[in-house]
């Protein structure tokens, strides 16, 4: 209990003094996760829309695989990305290992199935609602996808926020591919793991509270900006 209070006090102190190290790793956390989120959403949303409107032989199997991949162990993703990006790996020439770019790649792989699965649920429901109308209007597949993505944008925002939550709290994969290097690849979660290992629970908890506050602030800010709860809107 003492550690919890100490953690809260430490978090408060770190924030009010705008601790430079805290600011640096917080900004890096945000940069890595938001970049990964944008890339993952750009892949996942069209994929989810395509799975909603297109009928093909392996569709059910693809959806099942996508759902299964939501539970992809981050450590395994980290390991695979590590092997691919390591000096002897196929992409070693790019020198990306132990850089924020490697962390973004790992996060994108983790986030795409999650965002695509959550988005697909919403888009599938909307498609069953719109199906007859859009078919009767002779709408092209691309137009169907565009219509679904636009009209389900608030549900997609929720899917993206679920992805943000997963990404900002992720530690296993980015620890492996980022290496938790100070002033280079250290982010909030890896810093928490490090401080816990060192036995500095108060600092670890302080960083943890900052992480929670950050996740809450981004979620609330997005809802506020998107006005998702405004009356009469979808």
């Amino acid at each position, binding site marked *: 209990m003492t550690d919890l209070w100490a953690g809260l006090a430490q978090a408060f102190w770190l924030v009010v003094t705008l601790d430079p190290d805290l600011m640096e790793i917080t900004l890096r956390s945000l940069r890595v996760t938001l970049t990964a989120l944008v890339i993952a959403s750009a892949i996942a949303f069209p994929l989810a829309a395509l799975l909603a409107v297109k009928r093909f032989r392996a569709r059910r199997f693809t959806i099942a695989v996508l759902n299964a991949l939501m539970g992809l162990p981050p450590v395994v993703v980290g390991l695979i990305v590590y092997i691919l990006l390591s000096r002897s790996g196929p992409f070693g020439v790019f020198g990306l290992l132990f850089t924020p770019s490697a962390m973004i790649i790992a996060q994108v792989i983790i986030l795409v199935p999650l965002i695509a699965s959550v988005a697909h649920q919403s888009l599938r429901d909307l498609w069953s609602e719109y199906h007859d109308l859009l078919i*009767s*209007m002779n709408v092209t597949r691309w137009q169907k996808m565009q219509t679904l993505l636009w009209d389900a944008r608030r549900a997609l925002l929720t899917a993206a926020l679920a992805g943000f939550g997963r990404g900002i709290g992720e530690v296993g994969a980015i620890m492996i591919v980022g290496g938790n290097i100070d002033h280079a690849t250290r982010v909030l979660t890896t810093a928490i793991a490090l401080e816990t290992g060192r036995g500095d629970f108060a600092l670890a908890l302080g960083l943890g509270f900052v992480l929670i506050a950050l996740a809450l602030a981004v979620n609330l800010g997005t809802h506020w900006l998107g006005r998702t709860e405004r009356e*009469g*809107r*979808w």
Partner: protein
Amino acid sequence: MSDLFPLCARGAETRRRGRVLVGPVDLTLEAGGVTVVIGPNGSGKTTLLRLLHGTARLSAGTLDWACDTEEARKHLGFVFQRPVMLRRSVVQNIAYPLRLRGVGRAKARGQAAEWAARVGLGQMLDRPATGLSGGEMQKLALARAFITAPRAVFLDEPTAALDGAATREIEALMQEAKEDGVRLILATHDMGQARRLADDVVFLHQGRVAETGPAEAFLAGPETAAAQAFLRGDIVE
């Protein structure tokens, strides 16, 4: 602009999982006027409309428009019994078909606003369409179907769930469209509506066209026993 009609169906069938839903249908729809498709519940009115429109798969037979089928489909509209509302505002719903055709946002909105006013929705342009009443939704669906100036519109029991006032307004809109030269193919189980609007009638029974002909002659004295029973108000299976 090439002619759409006549539309000729020869032995046209639509099946689902091997079961024939409608057909074989032999039918010719000439240009102009209102064709009313009537028949007991489950006789296949909706499926026939979808088959003719091209939204139901043609499993057997042929369906020939006077012009190329793909070209013909660009000039068709469809209004459903339960109107589908996009999760957008009234004006955006009406403008949707124009936007699909590449019309600019401002121009599409302007035309949609005109149509909204024409169907009595001019005061609710920016309201969410899903919040409208049943009659208002159906009027929106009509405006959305007519905004692209289609040459033929299929209407599947558009007044089935509406009260008298809303039905009168919808029928007035259909009448206007007919006067503007739009070919209407209307499914209904409301014989009063058939009498008011029909130029010719297609009577469906058990998925097949049992009788066709000019409305006046059909309503005065149908030839088939099923049609006679239907007009008497008997239960027809």
